[in-house]
């Protein structure tokens, strides 16, 4: 009987082992592999960004990252305290490392994302003292032209806590680099490569025991390149025009496709300094700079468009049929216009006399446009502006763009001032690009592109995508040519930008002055060339530029530079 009991006891035990070792084998093998194999992520290189001619805008350089694996926060702290002097760690570096660890304790914690070769060689010497240290060659983002491209390319940096909570970044891990602004952010899903993995064998305390992986590596996959429409040569030329003294924004677009040829905000900043953590000093310096380099004046800053908006007023008036191409307004310009009990000045105190539309555009006669605005009527004028996308983002493929400001309806004024708190004088303001009207440089470039392309407004695109165009207005060919003649005349002798004319090239455009209550007025110019077969639209805003003639100089220089290289490119395209 006792023998039987013994036998039964052993059979039960053997059965239990059979269940564990044979039936549940796979599950336990997985657990044992998980125990001993520590995946070390291998960062993938980001996609290279090229300009339209294959010049490099953003690339990757080899750098070294130092990371560590730790079984606990305390162990990490003491390791950091030990390494501190060698790695020249600041309190900030230590805090960051601990934050990264807390977020993903099983992943190697990045201590220095971009270690100098000096630090790396010292660490290599002491490798045995710090068995958990991982020194890796990692790709580091580099922009050969730095500040020249910062306005549109943005920068990369470590993913933040709040990003990690964003479902958009669900697959990301702490310590990874992501696009933080500009193209880098906009095209993050494309530019981000696929991280690889190397497997280290570790013991129960997380110390690596085998040099070569017990399992084959999964190699990182680099992202495909991003081809852009940017003309790096034109971009550099534009940056040179602003030099160090001017501040403002410039956008150059091919009106037929919306391809953004150049986009710049002055003063700029160096995105290379931002890679791998923004240095506190540099960031402080940028923040305290009165010229606000961190505000992108091409896509973020909004300014009253001033007289450049008279193109919109003209288009709306013509489309509505309230003005004929040869009509003169009832009241000739004598330097101002009496509306109710208020007197609205023309910028030209001497007055322009009686003008048709073409002359009014050429001379930018405020009195003419006051009356045109009144003829259109506020409701239709607001609707027309909305139709011309004056209340929209231009749709440029940059994440930071600000929406342009324009009333949504008459109700806007009722809500703002009360039903009796405002008068039709608002129409007069809107008609000359003042009032509740604030536009980005890129959105004005889009408006003039739409005119240059006979009403087809293109979506401005930096990346080389399929062009998207949308009909926003329709003018008869006579109407169109009258407005065009007016815009051409602006750059002829006697026009407001006559001094910016180019020999052998017909330019068309419009200057503008944005009233600035806080200081000197901002100067605008938006124009295109060749006037009869436009290939480039340029919008320039100079902060505190007083009026548009200086901006017109810059714009015409950009146009001239571009069109000189234009024919060469055309030959290449045909060949």
């Amino acid at each position, binding site marked *: 009987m*006792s*023998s039987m009991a*013994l*036998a039964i*006891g*052993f059979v039960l*035990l*053997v059965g*239990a*082992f*059979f269940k*564990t*070792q*044979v039936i*549940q*084998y796979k*599950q*336990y*093998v997985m*657990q*044992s*592999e998980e*125990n*001993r194999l520590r995946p070390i992520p291998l960062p993938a290189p980001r996609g290279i960004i090229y300009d339209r001619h294959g010049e490099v805008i953003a690339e990757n350089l080899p750098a070294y990252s130092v990371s560590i694996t730790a079984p606990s926060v305390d162990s990490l702290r003491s390791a950091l305290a030990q390494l501190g002097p060698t790695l020249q760690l600041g309190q900030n570096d230590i805090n960051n490392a601990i934050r990264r660890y807390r977020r993903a304790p099983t992943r190697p914690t990045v201590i220095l994302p971009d270690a100098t070769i000096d630090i790396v060689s010292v660490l290599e010497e002491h490798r045995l003292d710090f068995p958990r240290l991982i020194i890796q060659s990692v790709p580091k983002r580099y922009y050969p032209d730095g500040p020249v491209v910062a306005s549109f390319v943005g920068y990369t940096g470590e993913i933040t806590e709040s990003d990690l909570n964003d479902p958009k970044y669900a697959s990301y891990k702490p310590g990874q680099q992501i696009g933080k602004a500009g193209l880098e952010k906009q095209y993050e899903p494309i530019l981000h490569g696929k991280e690889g993995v190397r497997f280290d*064998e*570790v*013991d*129960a*305390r997380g*110390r690596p*025991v085998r040099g070569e992986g017990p399992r084959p590596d999964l190699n990182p996959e680099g992202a495909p390149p991003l081809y852009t429409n940017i003309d790096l040569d034109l971009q550099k030329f534009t940056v040179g025009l602003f030099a160090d003294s001017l501040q403002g924004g410039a956008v150059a677009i091919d009106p037929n496709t919306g391809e953004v040829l150049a986009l710049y905000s002055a003063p700029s900043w160096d995105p290379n300094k931002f890679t791998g953590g923004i240095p506190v000093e540099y960031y402080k310096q940028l923040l305290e700079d009165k010229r606000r380099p961190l505000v992108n004046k091409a896509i973020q800053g909004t300014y009253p468009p001033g007289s450049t908006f008279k193109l919109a007023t003209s288009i709306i008036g013509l489309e509505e049929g309230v003005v004929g191409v040869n009509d003169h307004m009832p009241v000739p310009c004598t330097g101002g216009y009496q509306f109710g009990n208020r007197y609205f000045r023309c910028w030209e105190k001497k007055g322009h006399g009686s003008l048709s539309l073409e002359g009014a555009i050429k001379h930018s006669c405020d009195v003419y446009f006051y009356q045109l605005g009144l003829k259109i009527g506020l409701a239709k004028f607001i609707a027309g502006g909305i139709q011309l996308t004056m209340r929209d983002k231009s749709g440029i493929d940059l994440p930071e763009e600000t929406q342009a400001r324009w009333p949504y309806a008459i109700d806007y004024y009722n809500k703002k001032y009360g039903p009796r708190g405002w008068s039709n004088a608002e129409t007069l303001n809107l008609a000359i690009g003042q009032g509740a009207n604030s536009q980005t440089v890129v959105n004005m470039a889009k408006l003039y592109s739409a005119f240059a392309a006979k009403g087809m407004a293109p979506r401005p695109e930096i990346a080389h995508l399929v062009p998207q165009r949308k009909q926003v207005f329709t003018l008869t060919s006579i109407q169109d040519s009258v407005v065009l003649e007016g815009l051409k005349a602006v750059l002829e002798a006697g026009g407001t930008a006559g001094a910016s004319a180019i020999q052998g090239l017909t330019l068309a455009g419009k200057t503008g002055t944005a009233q600035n209550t806080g200081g000197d007025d901002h100067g605008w110019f938006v124009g295109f060339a060749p006037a009869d077969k436009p290939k480039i639209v340029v919008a320039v805003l100079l902060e505190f530029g007083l009026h548009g003639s200086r901006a017109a100089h810059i714009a015409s220089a950009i146009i001239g530079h571009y069109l000189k290289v234009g024919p060469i490119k055309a030959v290449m395209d045909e060949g």
Partner: protein
Amino acid sequence: MSRPIVSDFRLLAAAGILSLFGVAMVYSAGQTDTPTAVATLYKSQILWLLIGMGFAYAVGHSSVRFIEWMTTPLYALSIFLLGLTLVIGKGAGTAASTKSWLAIGSHRIGQPSEIAKVTVVLMLAKVLASQRETPKSLLDLWKPALVVGIPWAIIMLQPDLGTGIVFIGIFFAMLFWAGVAWPLLILIASPAISLVLSFSVGLWGMWFFLLLALVLWYRPYLIEGIVLMVLNVATGVVAPMMWEKLAPYQQNRLKVFIDPSADPRASGYHVIQSKVAIGSGGFFGKGFTLGTQKRLAFLPEQHTDFIFSVVGEELGFLGVTIALALFLWLFLRITKIAERANDSYSSLVAFGLMSSWFVHVLVNVGMTLNLMPITGIPLPFFSYGGSFLLASWLAVGILMRISGEGRGSALSLRR
């Protein structure tokens, strides 16, 4: 003493193969990627084995009567040494908080409880064999109860729960072998069962009525019946209070026994890693000395309490089955020795020694698969440890002697 030396070769072979198997596993347990002190322990284990075999040889050449004559002094000595641990005892290894080691200064000499496992068997056998009639009532059992109760109480004071369980196992197994009726055994065990079941009122209630039925059917002395029922009620109610009295590590071990994942980083970690080691061994194992769980230090106490996990990981289901078959072979052999023994003392000693090992194997091996709580009791012939190996081979020697003096020739046992 001119008796011819007859050796029970099967017993010797089973114990010898198990010991060599064990030494090999202790050697493997030392083969870790980060070398530790365990790396050289197999050498001392071999030394202890040789010493133990020497003892066995000596005992094997004495006589059962000499052993019986030595029983009382040896028992007294082991009680004295056990008592001494309460005064100058030290802890070690997983049981660092207990006082099971005798030490001079910082030098640990041995664990008296390991020797007591043998002497208590001898003493119990002597007491039970001296009783003319089979115990029929609880009162008849006061002597055997005292023989086990004294060392058990000391061991529980150390406190060493695992060894305590072994003593209870020995007690019941030897009473059973002495012919005590099974209802009486259940009645003796009933307060302890009440204790365990007290955590569930329903289960305890069911048990209580079953017990009542048993008492009415078996009809022990009235006073005994009443005392038993009172005791059951007392333990059923007292248990939760007892729980509070347990040391936190003991509470933890019991809790973790119920749910290892409750505490995966502390006590439960041991069991989880042990199961992972065994399970990942599969059918053929990862190869001798090549277990990753052991090599990379995921498996704790791989040379003592969890040495069988190393067997499972490195030699797989095959190795486990062979090891358990060897144990079964040994135990069946000893059972036969007990059956064929010349007198009831010899028979009880043989069966007692076997049951002591059986409890060890059951609890230790069961623990590696989380079928038993982690009580920190070693695996005979496998776990590293001098006292236990020595005591085990002492037992082998005694068994050899009993086998040699058994009825008929030892050859007649070979059926």
